[in-house]
């Protein structure tokens, strides 16, 4: 097929909407509905790969959808960071769809049509954010994601779901309206452009004295707190609250799509709005780096206290997301590279862990870690995958996570932030402390009650989590390719 890259952007964005439409039409026959979702998500991945092929060879395809308001357009331009994010989101969508079908059916969940429909919208929003060419488009996609995932979080419609949803929507809307929108408006009033440009758009204004460094520091703060999806403390509460959702939601959205849109936006703002040179020269990111460091440690410590597996994973995510914010705040080529890589490695690792949590719940209805003793006998595949993914999250070989942590550590060394280096190292130890005991207990400790028989979750749950577990190891060996692909984002100007 001979498709121009800009057309590919359009097709990639249209596909989730097509899925949405078909899900709506085929809602009455679940098999057809889920089959179509599965096929179309695979086709979407193919198109995204085609686009990636072009982008990684240096192309920067653009597509202008239209002008929403005079001066503010909905436009897309694909660069490597967004491309990598889009690949991750669309690739893991296939896996999650398989898993979601298995999970939702074996649970006899209600409202499956609504569930898969909202899922498609969320993926659409993720891709739109990934491809966005300006802050305005990114903001629209960001908010669309918040709204479309609310019904997923509150899927069960219980009192607990209502409360979780309230926290979720409250914090995400509050931060995005009060801070993020303000930051975008302010950026616009300084520069009169919102386009992402290599090297940033604020440099000129700073040189011409239009804006003072302290104002830029304030602007960076507005962005950092406004992008609530990055779950920087103290605006992280929504993420644990969102765990009330069914596990596939937690897996794809709250380990990959939603939170990664957050950190992706932070990276994007740091690289293409401020410019990493500007941040590192003026040191306006230093406080943010330390806040991220604090979030890394505090969230890890909180994670250790959680007995509920999903809650523990949620706090682990908060901590891991701060790694990426740290990479953006340090603003060196190495740290930005580390941040970009971490989007990928953490996504694959964490989605595996969530899949495992869901599989355990499906097979045994257990949610608390203290109940999981001896579970390794019953669910060897699940627990094995959990172990492999934990290795990657901790940052040990042969998990992909080792590379991103390596580059982040390199960034702290380059900028002589020794405390932050220490924070990274301590965090790895904490990761070991709160992740590794789970598989160890499952395999080594005998069960309290009668010995468990082999009882894995349904195949549609187990196969995806094995795939992603293998993926974490594959990423270890693919690091060079990932590095090459992401290299352009560390260059200051084109």
């Amino acid at each position, binding site marked *: 097929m001979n498709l121009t890259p800009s057309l590919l952007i359009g097709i990639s964005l249209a596909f989730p909407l097509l899925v949405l439409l078909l899900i709506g039409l085929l809602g009455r026959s679940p098999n057809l509905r889920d089959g179509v979702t599965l096929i179309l998500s695979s086709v979407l991945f193919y198109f995204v790969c085609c686009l990636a092929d072009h982008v990684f060879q240096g192309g920067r395809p653009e597509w202008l959808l239209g002008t929403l308001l005079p001066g503010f357009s909905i436009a897309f331009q694909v660069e490597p960071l967004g491309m990598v994010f889009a690949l991750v989101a669309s690739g893991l969508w296939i896996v999650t769809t398989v898993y979601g079908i298995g999970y939702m059916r074996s649970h006899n969940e209600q409202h499956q049509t609504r569930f898969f429909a909202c899922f498609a919208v969320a993926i659409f929003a993720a891709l739109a954010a990934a491809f966005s060419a300006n802050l305005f488009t990114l903001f629209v996609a960001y908010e669309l994601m918040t*709204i479309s995932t609310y019904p997923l979080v509150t899927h069960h419609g219980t009192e607990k779901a209502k409360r979780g949803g309230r926290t979720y929507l409250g914090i995400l809307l509050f931060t995005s309206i009060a801070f993020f929108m303000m930051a975008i408006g302010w950026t616009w009033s300084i520069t009169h452009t919102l386009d992402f440009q290599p090297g940033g758009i604020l440099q000129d204004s700073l040189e011409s004295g239009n804006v003072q460094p302290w104002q830029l520091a304030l602007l960076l703060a507005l962005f950092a707190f406004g992008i609530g999806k990055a779950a920087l403390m103290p605006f992280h509460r929504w993420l644990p609250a969102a765990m009330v959702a069914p596990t596939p939601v937690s897996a794809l959205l709250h380990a990959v799509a939603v939170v990664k849109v957050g950190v992706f936006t932070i990276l994007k703002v740091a690289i293409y709005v401020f410019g990493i040179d500007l941040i590192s020269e003026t040191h306006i990111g230093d406080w943010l780096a330390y806040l991220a460091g604090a979030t890394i440690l505090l969230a890890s410590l909180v994670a250790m206290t959680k007995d509920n597996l999903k809650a523990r994973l949620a706090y682990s995510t908060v901590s891991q997301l701060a790694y990426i914010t740290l990479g953006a705040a340090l603003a060196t080529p190495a740290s930005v590279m580390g941040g970009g890589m971490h989007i990928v490695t953490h996504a694959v690792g964490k989605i595996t862990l969530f899949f495992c949590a869901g599989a355990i719940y499906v097979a045994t209805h257990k949610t608390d870690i203290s109940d999981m003793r001896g579970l390794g006998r019953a669910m060897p595949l699940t627990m094995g995958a959990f172990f492999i993914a934990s290795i990657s999250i901790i940052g040990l070989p042969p998990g992909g996570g080792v590379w991103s942590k390596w580059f982040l550590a390199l960034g702290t060394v380059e900028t002589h932030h020794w405390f932050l280096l220490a924070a990274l190292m301590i965090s790895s130890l904490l990761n070991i402390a709160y992740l590794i005991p789970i598989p160890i207990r499952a395999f080594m400790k005998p069960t309290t009650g009668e010995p468990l028989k082999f009882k894995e979750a349904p195949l549609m749950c187990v196969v995806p989590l094995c795939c992603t577990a293998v993926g974490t190891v594959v990423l270890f060996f693919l690091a060079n390719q990932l590095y090459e692909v992401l290299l352009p984002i560390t260059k200051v100007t084109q």
Partner: protein
Amino acid sequence: MIEQHLPVLVVIVPLIAAPLCVFLFNRTLVYLFALATCWATFGLSLFLLAKVLQTGPISYELGNWPAPYGIEYVADYLSTFVMSFVTGIAAVVLTYAPRSLNEEVDPSRHYLVHPMYLLCLSGLLGICITGDLFNVFVFLEISSLSSYALISLGRSRRAPLAAFQYLVMGTIGATFLLIGIGLLYQLTGTLNMADMATQLGDDHGSRTMLVAFAFMTVGLCIKMAVFPLHTWLPNAYTYAPSIVTAFIAATATKVSVYAFIRIVYSIFTPQFAFDVHGLDVFLTAFALIGIFVASTAAIYQVNLKRLLAYSSIAQVGYMLLGISMNNQDGLTSGIVHMFNHAVIKGGLFLVVGCFALRLSSVRLEDLRGASRTMPWTSFAWVLGGLGLIGVPLTAGFVSKWLLLTAALDNASYLVAGLMLLSSLLAVVYVWRVVEILYFSEPSEAVKSSREAPWSMLVPTYLLIIGILVFGVWTSYSVGIASQAAQALLGGSP
């Protein structure tokens, strides 16, 4: 031939149709006649808008008396824009009306509804199009008197009292306006707005002029329901029949805002109002206080109509913020918000009407779990509520974004920040209702109810989808509004 008389036809058609309605005895016939009139007026005003966009402002001399002596009608960007959405909403609301009226208004009084409705519409349109200041007063009274009558038709025993409250406040407002007009007439010897503006010229010092301006501003602030002159509004909106609330909430306050813009920008000039006398500071302050107070009040309401009424008071504040910014972007955002809010609030009040029909109550406790039996109506509330909050891809976002960028460009950081913070209050009062609709156990009333009829859902969704359409396609709303703002500012050097 007809085309030439369009400006007057828009006002005259509903004005003449109104008394004719009384003579038609058959209820269905009356309704159909009024409906046809409304849609025809809508068509006429769209036609007029198209003509103005094509050829520029049109001046029409009533009875062929030349301008400063006779009465002049001026169809320019702003007036035709406002007229187009006022008539549009009037037509949609009346399409929705029959089932709702049957439920909410005593059948013996049905014959009053349609003539009053048309009279009110004609009054509102008259305020928009006339270029004569005394005419503004006359039409204001026509629309106000008919709206008092409409409000008093509500079934609740409190409806007449609410109407009376409104009557007292509204009359004070209209009288203030009249005093102002009288003083200006004494000063200039003319009632034609354009002529008056020329005669007043750069004279900024006259005490008479200042007093006239003060009277007119306060008078219109009462009609606009600007905090703290809003007290008539919550009761009037709550106890009026649903369709009356929908119609008045979406149009009447907007037209008052329109009249205010006219007076500030076309007669007194912003230099006089803002630069010399510093009205912008007062307006901004009252607007912000009003937004916070009214939004907070909305959070604590237990009656859905009352909740939306307080929200309306808050939303007027956003319009005033834009208008008092005294630059083109700000004024544009104010005008755009008039339109967007009309669509949003109109749509939401129609949703409320659907609940009122099926549940015979709009108290929040009776709405518990309504999404089970009324999924479409409930979902319409969600969409409309998102518009009210100002989520991207809805009309509310467009006006909020314009206001934000205008404020930041104006270096009014405090205003921008407070404006954004206040819009979070809208999240609370909208989502509180969403949670009640979706996450509560159904109330008794809900269990025995069913989805609203198509005849009401379709017009409701017409406006609700309008919220989404005008959130994406802005060349109509923002395009014309910015042209209007440019014309208003260009007219006053």
